[in-house]
């Protein structure tokens, strides 16, 4: 018996759970457009997104933008794979990035001068299956603990396996694996006489691979295996009672996820032409999780979209101060628009913030000219607009640090108070955020990027745990 994905879902509780979603439709014609958009099927949407992805380089992307696109696509592929084990099977796998590393290192060893006298230089159609099958076997081995470990224990064991991978590549057999210096001089992807050398060709390859993977996973999602995964996620005991082989189903989820990760790893290694242990450390894992969670666990399209959004923000926009500033103020304003109701209150808050800024700047300038000695660090029209609004003292480093600590305290206080006090407290918080941004954050993009990802994870989990495209699930209380 097959279940029609568009048909009525079994059990009324999911319908009840989506009541809030239906109420969240935008008003009037916007809502109609939204509903019309939702009526387009899944497959046409995938086709449109894929074609848009293929058409994007025709707009004339620069080298940097192309590289951001490639990185984003790799992470999207990884997030789609992670969705199998986290979103569908409900197993928290914190060692996922090790499979990515395994794929990359496996491909590197099979397509470089690292092993043997002359090295091994296999064509891609031969090395890819070897690496993917190897990863699947490794996935089975890692999944073995899940037979006995429930929930959190599994998270710890897999976290350690991920760490062990980094330690292993760093320390074991330096002549073969290169230690911290990694493996360099990896062949590009070559098969049937074709060699992929340029970044553009890797971009096209990744778009195609991502679309094909998503299509395969969509078929898998509503297959017997896919339904078994979700059954095990909801209640392993009930699933076992329905004769689902729980352990085998969990292991197959691990193996499938590992194969997708290894696939991403091979393309990553070939495109970079080098692999290093630090490429497969915790920050990458957190990026993949951030993407999956932002998009919504359990949804293929959500995982891909979320990862693309996170990576374009992380890799593309947060690197250059000017774009990062526009993003920062834009996101802040959008959050206020969405969260502060009614309109009158929003207007009061915004007006008060603007007045507070000019007043504070004027007072600070009157007291001492060194208090406003440095202009805002944002450049361009944004910096000009903020010149008389934000105080940036002569020694931005220290002032920014103090401001940062106070800001965190204010933010914590803000969620604790209610009503009028919240409105009053909101104004200095916004101004302080702008102050910290201008004095400190915007000039240190490498740290700011990670800070923002951590903050996005926390806020997203509290505000909308099901993600942008995910559906609210009903969790049976235990």
């Amino acid at each position, binding site marked *: 018996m097959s279940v029609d994905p568009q048909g009525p879902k079994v059990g009324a509780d999911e319908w009840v759970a989506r009541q809030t979603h239906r109420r969240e439709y935008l008003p009037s014609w916007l809502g109609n457009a939204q509903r019309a958009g939702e009526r387009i099927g899944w497959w046409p949407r995938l086709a449109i997104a894929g074609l848009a992805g293929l058409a994007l380089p025709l707009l004339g992307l620069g080298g940097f933008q192309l590289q951001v696109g490639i990185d984003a696509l790799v992470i999207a592929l990884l997030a789609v794979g992670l969705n199998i084990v*986290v979103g569908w099977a*409900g197993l*928290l796998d914190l060692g996922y990035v090790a499979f990515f590393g395994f794929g990359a290192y496996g491909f590197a060893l099979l397509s470089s001068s690292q092993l043997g006298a002359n090295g091994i230089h296999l064509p891609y159609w031969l090395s890819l299956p070897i690496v993917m099958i190897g990863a699947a076997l490794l996935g089975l081995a890692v999944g*073995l*603990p899940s037979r*006995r*470990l*429930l*929930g*959190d*224990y599994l*998270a*710890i*064991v897999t*976290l*350690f*396996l991920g*760490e*062990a991978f980094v*330690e*292993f590549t760093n*320390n074991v057999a330096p002549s073969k694996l290169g230690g911290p210096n990694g493996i360099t001089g990896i062949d590009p992807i070559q098969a049937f006489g074709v060699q992929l050398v340029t970044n553009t060709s890797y971009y096209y390859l990744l778009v195609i691979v991502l679309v094909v993977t998503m299509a395969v996973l969509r078929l898998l999602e509503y297959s017997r295996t896919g339904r078994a995964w979700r059954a095990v996620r909801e209640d392993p*005991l009930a699933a076992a009672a329905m004769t689902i082989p729980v352990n085998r189903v969990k292991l197959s989820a691990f193996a499938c996820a590992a194969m997708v990760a290894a696939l991403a790893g091979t393309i990553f290694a070939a495109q970079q032409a080098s692999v290093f242990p630090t490429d497969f450390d*915790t920050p990458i894992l*957190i990026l993949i*999780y951030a993407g999956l*969670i932002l998009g919504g*666990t359990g949804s293929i399209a959500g995982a891909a979209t979320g990862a693309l959004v996170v990576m374009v923000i992380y890799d593309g926009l947060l690197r250059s101060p000017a774009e990062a500033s526009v993003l920062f103020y834009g996101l802040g304003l959008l959050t206020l628009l969405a969260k502060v109701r009614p309109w009158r209150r929003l207007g009061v808050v915004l007006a008060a913030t603007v007045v507070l800024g000019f007043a504070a700047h004027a007072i600070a300038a009157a007291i001492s000219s060194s208090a406003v000695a440095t202009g805002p660090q944002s450049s361009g029209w944004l910096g000009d607009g903020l010149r008389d609004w934000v105080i940036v003292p002569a020694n931005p480093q220290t002032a920014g*640090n103090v401001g*940062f*600590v106070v800001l*965190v305290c204010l*933010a*914590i206080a803000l*969620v*604790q108070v209610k009503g009028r006090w919240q409105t009053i407290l909101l104004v200095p918080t916004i101004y302080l955020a702008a102050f910290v941004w201008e004095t*400190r*954050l915007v000039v*240190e993009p490498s*740290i*700011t990027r*990670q*800070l923002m*990802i*951590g*903050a*996005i*994870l*926390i806020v997203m*989990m*509290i505000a909308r*745990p099901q993600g942008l495209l995910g559906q609210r*699930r009903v*969790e049976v209380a*235990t």
Partner: protein
Amino acid sequence: MSFFFQELVNGVTTGALYSLVALGFSMVYGVLKLLNFAHGDLYMVGAYIGFFVIQWFGGAQHLTIAVPLLLVIMFVLAAGLVGGLGVAIERFAYRPLRDAPRIAPLITAIGVSFFLESSALLLFGAQYRVYNTADFISLSSGIQIGSVTIDSVQILVLVLGVVLMAGLQLLVNRTRLGRQMRAVAADREAAEMLGINVNFVITATFFLGSALAGVAGIMGGLLFNQVTSTIGFIAGLKAFTAAVVGGIGSIPGAMLGGLVIGVAESFVTGYISSTYSNLIVFGILIVVMLLRPSGLLGRAQLQKV
């Protein structure tokens, strides 16, 4: 043979430190059933507080106050501030998610850990901060048993560790608050129905656990001398290992686990090679998990339907 005993002493000392971090981790898991991935970063914050206290009083070479007083200030300040930070994290990040699906607070914990680490990097910079312990505590004034030396910092860590663990054991087993903690750990809803202020108990647990991590951070600073924003991650991993090896949620288990990990690490470093010490610690964890999934002292969980 003296090498063996020397390594044993070193291992027990670092083990005491791991035990303190593991205790907080295990207590939080006990009451909230939450793996607090940010716990290791609280250790890092504690270590930084110690460093700044030393700087405040003139730096390691030119201290302006007596050393015992300095140590008291360091430990009290770290316990208070880090405890407060732990309480803030609980209220801000974990409390809104108390009834959310299990995976949500776990991921929030990862986010908090990332946030704390990058904040420390931003505020304190990437360079290593050095305690220079040897400049104000004379390391040679320790105990000499045969050819085995226990230096004064090790004595301090061991004594303080034992006192804190004994105190915690008394608190959990003999006081009203401890009884409430155990009740909340056993069944939160039932505890609430019996009139226990669950929110207060959870806050108190977070304060105690985080304060222990803060104290351990200072001990780590005194022992290993170096502080940077990433030390929390490795300390957190070791503490997880200790808590899980001993049996998560069990307080004697966390102490035992810390000692096992500390001693194992010390022996691997001494007899084999320091490059493999982390790999072997992880190996121990995985073997213990596979053979005894509930840890050495943990009780097997019954799955309720």
